[in-house]
Each structure stands twice: as C-alpha cells, then as structure tokens.
C-alpha cells in the first residue's frame, strides 16, 4: 500500500519529465526520396486554430495552406539550387488561444524541426507568434494577422502577405470618390477588438484626404448585436456613407437596424460579413447594394507569374474540398503566404533561415492573389483591397476598375423604394 502511494507520486514526477522529454517524435527530415536530385523534405510548421472561437477561419486558412501543399508536391517540391525538396506542413491546434499558439510554435521549431512557419489565424495570435519568430530567428509568413501594430515593432522575421487593417475600407473610400453625386460624409461604427479598431482608424485618417468628413465615429463591445441605439445616433448625423468595422453577426444586425430606422445612406459598407454566403442568406433582398472591402475575390484578374490563375484556383478548390462554395479570401490569402515562402526559398537558393528571410524582404512577385512585396516592416502594402458589392443576391467585384467584373450600382435606393 505504502509503496503504491510512493509509486503514484513517482508517476506524477515521471509525468512532468515525460512532458519535458518531448512526447512528439523527432520527425527529422528523412533522406532522399530515391530519385536523383531529390533532397530532404522541407518542414514547415503552422500553429492554427482548428478548435475554439476562430476555428471556422482557422480551418479555412488550413485549406489554403493545403491547396498549395498538394500542388507543390505534385510538382516534385521546391527547387533549391537544382535539388527538389518535397514539403511537409506540420499543424498544431492552438485552440484559438494566443499564448498556446506561441507555445506550440516553439514546439514546432524545437521538436518538430520546422524550418519555416506559416502564421496562425488572427492578430493576437500573430502578435504572440511574431515574438517566437524573432527569438528563434525563423521566418514566419503570415496571412491572417492584419493589425499593423505587429509590424511597427522592428521585428525582422515576420512577413504579412495581406493588406493591413487600415486599408480594409480605404478601397470603398477610393471608389466613393469616383462616383457622382460624390458622397461627402461618413459615419462609422466599430467593434472594440484590435483589428476592427485599426480598420476604423484607417477610415478616420483616410476619408478627409479624399474630401470626405467623418461625422460619426463610435465603438461598441466586440460581438454585440444590440446596435439600434448607435445606428439611431448615426442616422441623426444623416451620413452619405455608413460603415462598420466588425464581424458577420454585427454587420447583419447593423443592416437590419438601418432598414428598421430608415437610415438611407448612399453607401452601406462593412469590413467583414458581406463576403460570406451567410450574409445573403440572413438578409435576402436587403443584402443587395451592400459593399465590403475584401482581400481577394474569385473575380479579380491578376496575371500571375507562377502557380494557378483565379479560375483554375477556384476549380482546384472545389475539386479538392468537394464543395460548391467558392474559396473565400481567407483561403486565398493563406495560399498566397505559401507562394511567398516558396518564391523566397527559390530566390535564396538556400534553406538557411537568415537567407530566406533576406529573400522575403526583397521579394516582388505577382500571384493570383495580387502583388506580393513587403515594405521595410514586412507588410504587403502594395496589393490593393478590392471592393465587392452584392447585386441581385450575388457577389460582384466593383473596384478597382482594372480587376472589377461589374460597375457599382450607385446610389443605394432609399429603403422605402426597395
């Protein structure tokens, strides 16, 4: 009896030791794949939210990564200095928790022997993981953390392929400036999470440079759908443009409140929400005329220098995941992160993290997602945000004109005449 108790304590100690001795198998790169000129696998790690509050977006990001993974391995892998290396992506589920994301990223590097990192979902996790990238001097290419603050800290190893948060609704302002009669006043309602606040700040900073005045600028608690009093206050300022930087549920609530209260803006624009099928399902005809800023749409027309074009990408997505849905921008931007990393490795002709990092800093390629080029902070400010509008229950790209498939239907008719 006595012994068994001591033994159970010993088990507890062993448990700790087991945790520290690393339960994960080493996963060291295996040797050649048989054929000549084939090197060891390149191992890429990604801590991503497969469960928890952002599991939906996390799984979309993983789809984007997996799209590229299957394509690159069909090509025989990444060519480094004449030698082909197949690629493995190791995922760890960070449960949508930023601190766990950092822990798992360290695990991927130390125990999974990840040579490069593809980013997690969301700005808080990306901020935590950027620190790990710095500490380990391992490049991280990320596609799902748009908060600009991450890139203003002098970090050297984090690169974001997506347009920064402040640009999310700037495209709508640009578009509005070209329309007649030109709208002149903007009201914006913003959720209070770091991403949404930056989106709103972008509008407040940018609108005046296009001759528009921000007449209303208020925050509400993230996730709140009780917005009618805020919408009523916004209506009192009689804005030409009503904007929301928030999330799907809030965008739906604001659109409903705008109808109920008769807020007749010429432009209704939301940062997140209208691009998803759920928005149209929830609002039906009331979803028409609504604009949103999007990183990418299936209609955009860029001329990629490698990988697939838009049409082939959409087709490959539908085949691979056996779905009728178009890939949304989370999927596309995640694939774009992989493309940036691939090109940088090829350009560096090396798997050395520091050399690949330098190649990322110098990268300038055109992809189906748009141009990928980083400023000195590691931020892709060269790709424009596109503007989508829902017309007759369908998504169309309406701005910028060179990638658009339709003209904006403007102005939005008053609710009483719809």
């Amino acid at each position, binding site marked *: 009896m*006595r012994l*068994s*108790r*001591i033994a*159970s*304590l*010993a088990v*507890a*100690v062993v*448990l*700790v*030791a*087991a*945790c*520290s*001795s*690393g*339960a994960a198998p080493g996963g060291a790169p295996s040797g050649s794949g048989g054929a000549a000129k084939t090197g060891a696998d390149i191992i890429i790690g990604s*801590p991503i939210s*497969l*469960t928890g509050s952002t599991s939906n977006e996390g799984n979309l990001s993983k789809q984007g990564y997996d799209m590229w993974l299957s394509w690159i391995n069909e090509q025989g892998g990444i060519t480094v200095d004449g030698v082909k290396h197949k690629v493995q992506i190791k*995922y*760890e*589920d*960070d*449960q949508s*928790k*930023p*601190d*766990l994301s*950092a*822990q*798992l990223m*360290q*695990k991927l*590097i*130390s*125990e999974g022997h990840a040579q490069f990192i593809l980013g997690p979902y969301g700005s*808080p996790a990306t*901020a*935590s993981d*950027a*620190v790990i990238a*710095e*500490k*380990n001097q391992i490049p991280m290419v990320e596609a799902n953390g748009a*908060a600009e*603050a991450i890139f203003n*800290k002098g970090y050297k190893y984090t690169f974001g392929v997506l347009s920064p948060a402040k640009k999310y609704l700037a495209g709508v302002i640009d578009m509005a400036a070209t329309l007649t009669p030109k709208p002149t006043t903007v009201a914006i309602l913003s959720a*209070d*999470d*770091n991403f*949404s*606040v*930056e989106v709103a700040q972008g509008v407040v900073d940018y609108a005046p440079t296009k001759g528009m005045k921000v007449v209303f600028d208020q*925050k509400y*608690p993230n996730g709140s759908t009780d917005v009618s009093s805020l919408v009523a206050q916004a209506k009192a300022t009689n804005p030409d443009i009503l904007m929301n930087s928030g999330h799907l549920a809030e965008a739906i609530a604001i659109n409903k409140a705008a109808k109920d209260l008769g807020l007749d803006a010429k432009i209704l624009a939301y940062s997140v929400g209208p691009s998803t099928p759920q928005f149209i399902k929830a609002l039906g005809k009331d979803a028409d005329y609504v604009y949103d800023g999007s990183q990418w749409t299936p209609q955009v027309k860029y001329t990629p220098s490698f990988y697939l074009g838009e049409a082939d990408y959409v087709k490959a997505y539908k085949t691979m995941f056996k779905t009728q849905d178009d890939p949304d921008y989370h999927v596309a931007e995640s694939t774009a992160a992989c493309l940036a990393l691939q090109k940088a490795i090829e350009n560096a002709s090396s798997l050395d993290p520091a050399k690949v990092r330098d190649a990322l800093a110098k990268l300038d390629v055109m992809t189906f997602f748009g141009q990928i080029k980083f400023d000195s902070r590691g931020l892709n400010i060269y790709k424009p945000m596109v503007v989508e509008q829902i017309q007759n229950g369908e998504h169309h790209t309406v701005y910028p004109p060179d990638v658009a498939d339709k003209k904006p239907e403007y102005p939005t008719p008053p609710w009483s005449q719809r």
Partner: protein
Amino acid sequence: MRRRVLGVVAVAAVALFALLPLLSTDQARSAGLPQILDRSQLRELTTISMFVVLTSAWNIIGGLAGYPSFGNVVFFGLGAYATAVLTDPEHGHLPLVVGLLASPLVPAVAAVVIGFPLLRLRGHYFSIATLGISIAFGEVINNLDVLGGATGLFPPIIRNDLLFYYLMFFAAALTVAVTWWITRSRLGYGLVAIRENEEAAAVLGVDTTRYKIIAFVIAAVLTGLAGGIFAQWNSFINRENVFPVDYSVQMILMAVIGGAGSITGPVVGAVGLEALIQLLAGGSGVYTQILLGALLAVTVIFLPRGVIDFVVGRSRLTLAHFRRSLRETSV
C-alpha cells in the same frame, strides 16, 4: 518513514526543476553535456511554474481563508500591464527591473480597493462579484488608449528564455514559502478560523476584515508578479492574453484537484494539470479537451479533497472511500 520518503521525493523534484533547465543552454551544449531540455520544454516548464504561482496565490485567499475568488486573473492582468506600460518603448521605455518592481504594487493597491467592498460578500456572491470585476477591468483597459487600447502593449523582446524561467521559478518558490509562513503564523490560524466559521472567529477576537484583506493583498502581489514576468517574457499583451477568464478557472481547478488549503496541494495540482494540458495540447484533435474535462470530473468526484490528500494517505483507493466521496460531493 513515509513522510521522509515523500520529503526526499519533493526535494528531488524541486532540485530537478531548479537545475535541469541549465542543460538547455548553448553553453551546456558546447560543453558536451546532454541536451535533455529544448527551448520548447523550457517554455513549458516556465508556464508550469507560472501556474504554481497563480494556484498557490489563489490558495491563500480561496483555500486558507475560504473566499473562492473567480477573478484572481485581474491581478495577473494588472501586474502584466504595470510592467508592460513601463518597459514598452512607446510608453515608459524603462529597464526590466523597474517594470518588474511595479508588477506587484499595482495589484496590491487594487486588492485593497476591491477587497474592502467585496470581502463583505460571501460564498457565491463573492465569487460572482470577483468574476464581474475581473471582466470589467479587462474591458476598461481594452478601451484605454494610454494603455495601448485594443492593440495592446509590446515590451521589448529579451531573447534569454532561461532568465524568464528562473524568474518564474523564483516567483513560484516565493509563493510556496509565503504560504508556508502564513500557515505557521497568527495570520494563517486567523484565516483558517474565518474559513471554518467567520462569526466564531470574530467573537474570538480575530479582526476578520483586516485578515481577509491582508490575504487578498498577498495573493494579489504574488499573482501580479507572475503577470509582470509573463508580460516581459511574452513581449506582447492585450486583454485577450492577460485577462482570460480561463486562467481564473484554471487556478481554482488546479488548487481543488491538488488539495486546496494545504501548502503542497496547489503545487501538485498546478504541476500535474498544467503538464497534462501541455502534453495534450496541439495535434489536430478536439478530443483532447473532452478527455481533459472528463478527467477533471472524475478526479473531483473520487478525490474531493484533492490528490495530495490521497498521496499522504488520508484517502484510500478503496470502494468504500469512493462511496463516501460520492456521498460527500453529491447534494
């Protein structure tokens, strides 16, 4: 005899925690010593030490005084923000030492201010009030632009992870030492008296309000210190990672599972549970969380007084004991 063996095991475990991380350094590697720990495992050990601090500190107010705070994370968050606002280059830009010295002070003041009204409440009312306060603080800080607002704060990166491990290990050792001291002091006897019967304690001359506030402040100081170390170690904080309600719940679970009210119980609970959480983390399965939940339920049902009670021999692994446990824990 058994106490002696247990003592030896405990000392060995502490020595292991104190010395093993040294082997993870580059110096150790170049000296040809075995590389037992990598950076990931060092990080896991740091997190485990952090939860030893949080759980043992919670034990002072929740276990000894019997006031189950559901909002202790507020002290963690305040400590983290105190340090970060002082060391963030865009704010204070002061050295780490200054930041760490501030991390216990701000939570201490907050504990006095919060404690005066809240420690008059008991049981569920106290729990709910502390939970509310911790959420409210997070919301307020999230909307204060001077504290980085929703973006958060970014203390400069210090690459020496070993330093942060030892800081956290020191904080853990300090917390256990303080708990040990309390249980042998007048304060400790007073707190236990309050837990068992507050009216009786007051009648016997225990200044209950003062004792409770002292316990609350001590818990806040230690929790805040861990928050300060975390902020600098993680180099990024915002509401989401330093005011998570999860942490408040985790502290309580760890203390209860280990054995609330004792010195070693919360330590065993924190080490065991956090090691398990780290072990199960990652992969791509949703089942790990279900498994963890089931394990917690089973432990609480069969070992209501905590694992430590079982280890030192007051509980027994017999059917009769299980039946009694079920009787005690079911309403």
